[in-house]
């Protein structure tokens, strides 16, 4: 066996969460390596629409953490860390029919309760935006959210000095001893004082007992057109409901229309329980497009050039898993974001870096963060690395 290379911290997974953790640790002077089976932003981060959205988060701890992360993301952007990756833009949530209008009421109440960085600046008929069609009965305009494509954030974070990228390199396993952790790759072993696992759906390869499952969302990309027709993402209120309830109770499909800087639109998404990024179908495409065109009629002039399924990591209780492995201070988990990783990544990176250094979490969010600890899955402690 060749000599083992030593890093202060090894981060498994080069998605947006792993990249943020790596940046925060490197910024504090640690020597870190980021290992990925494929490469940067190769899974959910690269397939994301990039919405830094508080509105879509579950009320309670997640919405409050998202709110804090949005503020911190803006701070990182203004310091130049996320330059070119994050930009502020308005966002729009629309509804049609009783269930969705009720969901919009709940949204307004949720944002008022957080009293955070996202403000309702408009609430009324579709006329607030000239491009909207008859499928919009009520429109809420939000100010304060932003856009951060996952691959751009990953690239920005990983360009910092002190980070060694290692890919493509699947992790075959790891051992913990008194002095550190040994990470096994196909052709060599790496030593580290601390392992952070930010592996998304692949988490269960190293921690088979965690209740994480893949949840696919079909996404469709149009051709280019004049940019700026829609100033921010347009989300159906059904999407907010889909995140908290069973999707089959929804009368209308939960569509999100995201305008890209290229003048293209990214339209999603379904929620399906499988892990095949190539599994897309005409009936879903048509269902989403029917609703999208009623909301944004100019889409009828476009062509769909590409489709794929983004594979998110979902947890049985629909909350991310963030924190040290129970009883094991050398291994920290950050996974199960199910699409919320874009928004939460900045904050999670900062807090995981604190955990690695043995510091307590930031006061203002400590209680909310504690609810996401892997300790809530007691069985995971027993068999995690069996």
């Amino acid at each position, binding site marked *: 066996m060749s000599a083992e290379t030593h890093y202060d911290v090894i981060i498994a997974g080069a998605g947006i969460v792993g990249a943020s953790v790596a940046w925060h640790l490197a910024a504090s002077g640690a020597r870190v390596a980021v290992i990925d089976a494929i*490469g940067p932003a190769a899974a959910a981060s690269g397939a994301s629409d990039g919405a830094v959205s508080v509105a879509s988060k579950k009320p309670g701890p997640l919405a409050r953490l998202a709110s804090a992360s949005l503020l911190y993301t803006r701070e990182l952007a203004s310091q130049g860390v996320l330059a070119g990756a994050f930009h502020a833009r308005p966002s729009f949530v629309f509804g049609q029919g009783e269930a969705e209008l009720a969901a919009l009421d709940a949204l307004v109440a949720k944002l008022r309760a957080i009293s955070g960085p996202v403000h309702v600046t408009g609430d009324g008929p579709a006329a607030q935006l000239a491009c909207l069609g008859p499928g919009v009965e009520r429109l809420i305009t939000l100010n304060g959210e932003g856009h951060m494509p996952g691959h751009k954030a990953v690239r920005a974070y990983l360009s910092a000095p002190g980070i060694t990228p290692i890919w493509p390199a699947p992790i075959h396993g790891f051992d913990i001893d008194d002095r550190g952790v040994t990470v096994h790759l196909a052709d060599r072993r790496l030593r580290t004082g601390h392992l952070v696992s930010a592996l998304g759906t692949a988490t269960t390869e190293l921690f088979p007992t965690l209740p994480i499952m893949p949840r696919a969302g079909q996404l469709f990309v149009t051709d280019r057109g004049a940019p700026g027709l829609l100033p921010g993402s347009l989300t159906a209120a059904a999407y907010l409901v889909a995140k908290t309830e069973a999707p089959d109770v929804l009368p209308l499909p939960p569509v999100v229309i995201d305008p890209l800087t290229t003048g293209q639109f990214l339209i999603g998404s379904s929620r399906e329980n499988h892990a095949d990024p*190539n599994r897309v179908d*005409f*009936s879903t495409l*048509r269902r989403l*497009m029917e609703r999208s065109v009623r909301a944004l009629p100019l889409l009828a002039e476009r*062509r*769909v*050039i590409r489709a794929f399924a983004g594979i998110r990591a979902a947890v049985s209780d629909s909350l991310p898993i963030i924190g040290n492995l129970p009883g094991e201070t050398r291994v920290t988990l950050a996974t199960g974001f199910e699409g919320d990783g874009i928004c939460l990544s900045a904050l999670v990176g900062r807090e995981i870096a604190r955990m690695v250094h043995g510091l307590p979490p930031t006061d203002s969010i400590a209680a909310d963060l504690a609810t996401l600890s892997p300790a809530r899955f007691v069985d995971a402690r027993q068999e995690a690395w069996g």
Partner: protein
Amino acid sequence: MSDPVLVVGAGLAGLSAAAELARAGLPVLVVDQAQAVGGAFHRQPLQGALSLATAAQDRRWSDLMAKVAAQGSRITLALATQFGGVDHKGTALLTGRMNRLFRPRAIVLALGARESVRPRPGWTLPGVETAGSLQIRLKTLGEAPQGRVLLAGSGPLLLAVGAQLTKLGSPPVAILEAGRPFARPLTPIGLPRDYWIEAAAYLSRLMLARVPILTNTRLTAIRAEGGTLVAEASSGRRFIVDHVALHDGIRPNDFGMPACDVLPVVRLGDCREALGARAAMVDGQMGGAALAARLLGRTAPSADPELARQTRAQARLARIYAHDVTAELNNLPEDTVICRCEARTLKDLRTLGPTPTARQLRLDGRFAMGACQGRFCGDWIARLTSAETSKPGIGAPRWPARPIAVADLLSATDETEGETQ
């Protein structure tokens, strides 16, 4: 009536397959994006236009059309109709004149070959096109474009298009052939007799019109200058022309082809392996009969030895035209456009480092992100980056199979509704 077998492409392979499938008793729906049948090789001229086909070609085509006609209503033909792809449930989308979502019993992809064009400075300028698309225009319209034409690249198609331009009274300024097809006089001896007859016909027409055929000569760059195109050859010669038609060989249509687990999807003809017109007809027949046998639970027919003969002939032809493409790629200037749809250059590619992942190529580099999804540039990107970059990641499977107008998707008749999934 049971679900039809969908045949995409009404050329030699597609119609040969359709005739065999129908002969076995299966209903067949043949669709083609063009307004007329014939595919690339037998593209039929518009009403009243001069036909470029030889007597032998006309005979072959009318024989095939008679076989198709003999099947009567078992074969339905839908022209000006595009195949949008098939999804994992087996639903296929057709757009255009026939606009429907339905579940065929099987799918035959007989889309013909992909024409390959090597990137070079100026290859995306207006006035520059592929020799294959120029040829389809010649066959359809029966007239040559206005102005001077230069043909460049490599392969026998350049001679065919040159001869056809000459026949239409507008011989090309020159043909630049990167290979040295006449330098090894013994190699062509093994070619079948009909290849010789065809080549002799093209060459004699070109020689009578004194068209220079410059072998071992590459077209290195094209510039737009004062309403004309200036083309620079590796020999140092410059040509001032109005049109440049490029061609660097043909490849099978293996890029991002749809795959589906719930029904048979087969590729036939040049779409499966680029072996030319003679082989396409045989492959269509054999493949059609084999698919019919598979669907009906019968014994598969034995292989036709003609296909092996054509495979050997094409391999020989490839040796005759062989030349070093790697050297040409290594000498490309940094600002050469590689991805036409998104206007990404060689420099943009180099910025991604020596071993970009497929995701980095797409998301960071924006390669293969446009309307063609890598169909034109995928091969070149794979060659220009490290071998570690997996080619399939660039664009396979491509879904939908082609850009789909949202309006067409919404107006399609949905024949799958109510069916169990």
